[in-house]
């Protein structure tokens, strides 16, 4: 065999082995969710859907799903709006303010979430809306905005800004020129940024733990408190649902970003 091909084959095998090893826990989670017994054991002795039935009868889990969805959508909307407009503003006016903005936006990502969680709890109690959806949404926005911002910076850096000039020149004001000339050309980037914000919110646990109450707790928070009481397959059921949601999100993102490519293939 040619040496280069041999090296390639070895690299691929090694890569695949590491990937499989790291993804195996997910398989364990999915398999244990189908266990019949009430104990979390792998492999399960008997298989059934009993825990799935229990999940749909358990109000706490169902409301946690609603909460996670609500917080996720709220975070997505605020973080995307803030991140996109910040990156757009930075691109248009690259002055002193812009140079300060980039590192400033990054700060929330550098502070451990546990510290953010505690300080925000204190802050929101003073402000008078602790344990509300709003407090969790704001906390998650703090994390998701920088990610959207950096995604959009990279998207905007590839955008041909002469198109904005052309739109203005033809009579489109600041808002219409953005909507007609910029937005259609960066919508894939915005979608990816928004999806990132949603996933960040969906999986964030530490800040949500500090900021939620019994009525606003999200899925990771419920999972944590449940595991502390008993390690039963219900956690696996919830995890399986989360894995499915993430997979769906990735598939949607892939399709959305490749729509142009797809449409060219089909036409």
């Amino acid at each position, binding site marked *: 065999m040619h040496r280069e091909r041999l090296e390639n084959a070895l690299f691929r095998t090694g890569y695949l082995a590491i990937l499989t090893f790291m993804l195996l826990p997910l398989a364990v989670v999915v398999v244990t969710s189908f266990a019949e017994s009430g104990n979390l054991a792998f492999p399960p002795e008997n298989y059934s859907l009993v825990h799935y039935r229990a999940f749909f009868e358990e109000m706490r889990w169902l409301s946690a799903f609603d909460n996670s969805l609500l917080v996720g959508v709220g975070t997505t909307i605020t973080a995307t709006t803030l991140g996109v407009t910040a990156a757009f503003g930075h691109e248009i006016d690259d002055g002193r303010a812009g140079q300060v903005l980039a590192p400033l936006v990054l700060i929330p990502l550098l502070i451990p979430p546990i510290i953010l969680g505690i300080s925000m709890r204190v802050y929101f109690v003073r402000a008078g809306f602790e344990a509300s959806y709003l407090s969790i949404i704001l906390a998650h926005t703090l994390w998701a905005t920088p990610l959207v911002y950096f995604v959009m910076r990279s998207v905007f850096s590839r955008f041909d800004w002469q*198109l904005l000039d052309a*739109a203005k*020149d*033809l*009579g*489109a004001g600041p808002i219409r020129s953005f909507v007609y000339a910029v937005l259609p050309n960066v919508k894939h980037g915005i979608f990816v940024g928004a999806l990132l914000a949603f996933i960040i919110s969906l999986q964030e646990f530490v800040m949500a733990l500090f900021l939620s109450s019994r009525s606003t707790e999200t899925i990771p928070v419920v999972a944590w408190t449940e595991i502390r009481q008993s390690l039963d397959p219900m956690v696996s059921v919830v995890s399986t649902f989360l894995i499915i949601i993430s997979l769906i999100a990735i598939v949607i993102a892939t399709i959305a970003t490749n729509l142009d490519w797809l449409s060219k293939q089909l036409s």
Partner: protein
Amino acid sequence: MSEITLAGLEKRYGDTLAVEDVSVTIDDGELLCLLGPSGSGKSTTLRMLAGLETPTDGEIRIGDEDVTDRPAYERTTATVFQDWALFPHKTVLENVAFGLKMQGIGKSERRKQAREMLERVRMGEYADDDPMNLSGGQKQRVALARSLAVNPDVLLLDEPLSNLDKRLSEDMQIELREIHAELEETFVHVTHDQDEAFTLADRIGIMADGNLVQVGEPNEVYENPKNRFIEGFLGDTNFVAGEVERTTTESIHVETELGREVDLPTTGDADALAEGESVALSLRPEVLSIESTDVAGSDGNAEGEQATPVRTDGSTTNAVVGTVENVLYRGSTIRYSVAVEDTSVFVERTVADSGAFDAGDEIRISWDGADVLAFRDDGSRVDL
């Protein structure tokens, strides 16, 4: 009325001065070319006219209105961009109809008008195409149609032909002239290509280092350049360094690096130059005639360099003898680089002219003193 007045226009980016002082009045219906090397501030001036940049000082008036602080979308100007800036997510027709859409014109009406404009630039059959699939020349036409569709008072063209190949660019120049003649609108065209400027312009404005140096009709700026920069920028020329030896009421005698005194006849102020002042003389290839020294020497004059031949009309000519160093074929013309004393001068001949020379040949170069322009050390032109 769409007469444009620029008064003391300045644009500063931090410490950089992109445009220092541009003042000019552009007549209604005129086609003005702003010509200058890259970095001379011509595109910035155009963008300020479009409203895409705000001047840091000065005033812009279109017609009777002061539009200095008015944004692009509230101005009656339309720009054709260098890279055309067609909207990639819209069809050709939608691109052309965009400005009309912004004006609030209904869908069927704006599509009808856009289609007419596309027909005018002979792009009607491409109405439903993706603009990204068009060739450069086709994109150019669509961009032109898009800008003309809004019926602007002033059309601004920012080097729109610089990305086209020579042939296509020349065709488009003729078409632009025709469209300009037909529409009777004011056009401001920015270019770094002097041939383009000479072909298109009613008047040419020459820019250098952020300043509008000279504005005039093409032949005026070519024959009567204000300073050395313009003389060097418009076409090729030989600059010969020299020093004024003596002045009389009829002529100025300059000792040059050609190893020969050059006489400049003067009709005006004999004190235009002081004795001892250094000057640069511009000898354009088209004012230089060349002939073989064999022919010139046929009347027995072997030392042609010393002679002051008298032409048939009686005017004195200056002449030097040099050796051909290089022969450069440039299509329709042949350019000879000729070593004369310590310097080198280039001269041109059309291919049709009889008698080609080879490297090593000795030739006589002669000119009429009245065709020579002189410039002072600071670049200003000497008024002879």
